[in-house]
């Protein structure tokens, strides 16, 4: 009982630990599955091991160096996690809060319908759906359209031998904003050899922002979805519809 009373008396400690836990979990949610996560994890491991080593052997100079590093740690984190911080702040913005639950059913149906048709016809497709964060560099790399996102338009845009079929289309606020956009390719080396450039580009974009990227394989017609650096495949049209709806309306663990 003594222990419990003691811990209750120092309730501020628990409050501090709880707030820190929330902060760490928030950071984990932000960086999970991104390229920065592995860089940060490796860096934290190396610094921790070296620091314990320096403390243990009482290496004064190394200890001093780590003390200095600790003071510049916030700046280092901001530089390393700039993409994720931007993404997190975009998710907090008031505009997104009010627009988040807007009815997007018609657009989702248009996307799923066109993807189903493209998959049956074995036509490759790459569709990025903006979530909370814009990616102006990708939009500007393509041809601006600003047209309503309909099933017919999306299917037509990926018709082979047309000028706009190569690249990604960017859907924002129920409109096809741009077509033939160029996406950044992921640097991950652990991907299966069967995944071509289209899938790598989809993963690359999903690592940079929180857009949902739908891919239709030209060779197999397999439908995939990429979000926050995760690739899910194969999906049938119903699963695709469910997944997009879940992410856009944030109903499940996304």
């Amino acid at each position, binding site marked *: 009982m003594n222990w419990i009373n*003691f811990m209750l*008396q120092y309730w501020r*400690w628990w409050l501090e*630990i709880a707030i*820190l*836990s929330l902060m760490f*979990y928030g950071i*984990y949610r932000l960086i*999970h599955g991104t390229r920065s996560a592995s860089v940060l994890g490796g860096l934290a491991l190396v610094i921790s091991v070296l620091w314990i080593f320096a403390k243990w052997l009482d290496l004064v100079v190394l200890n001093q160096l780590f003390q200095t590093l600790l003071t510049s740690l916030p700046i280092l984190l901001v530089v390393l996690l700039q993409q994720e911080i931007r993404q997190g702040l975009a998710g907090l913005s008031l505009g997104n809060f009010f627009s988040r639950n807007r009815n997007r059913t018609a657009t989702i149906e248009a996307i799923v319908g066109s993807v189903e048709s493209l998959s049956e016809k074995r036509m490759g497709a790459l569709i990025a759906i903006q979530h909370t964060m814009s990616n102006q560099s990708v939009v500007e790399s393509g041809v601006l359209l600003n047209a309503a996102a309909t099933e017919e338009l999306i299917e037509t845009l990926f018709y082979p031998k047309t000028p706009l079929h190569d690249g990604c289309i960017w859907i924002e606020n129920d409109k096809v904003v741009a077509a033939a956009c160029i996406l950044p390719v992921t640097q991950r080396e652990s991907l299966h050899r069967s995944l071509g450039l289209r899938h790598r580009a989809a993963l690359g974009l999903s690592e940079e922002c929180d857009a949902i990227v739908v891919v239709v394989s030209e060779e197999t017609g397999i439908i995939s979805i990429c979000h926050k650096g995760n690739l899910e495949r194969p999906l049938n049209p119903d699963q695709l519809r469910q997944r997009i709806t879940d992410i856009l309306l944030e109903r499940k663990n996304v």
Partner: protein
Amino acid sequence: MNASFFSNWRAKLTSILIAFAFWWFLKSQLEPNFFQKAWQLYTLQQLNETTAPPAP
């Protein structure tokens, strides 16, 4: 209780453990031997309470 409360429990548990270790590290940098001092203070308080003379 929401079922999602327990989802991703490994990440949540790791966050709590890291937060605890981090807090302990920072606290001991600010106040060396903070835990021992707090415990001593607490036992002294308890001792005073049990041996205090009865109120007149």
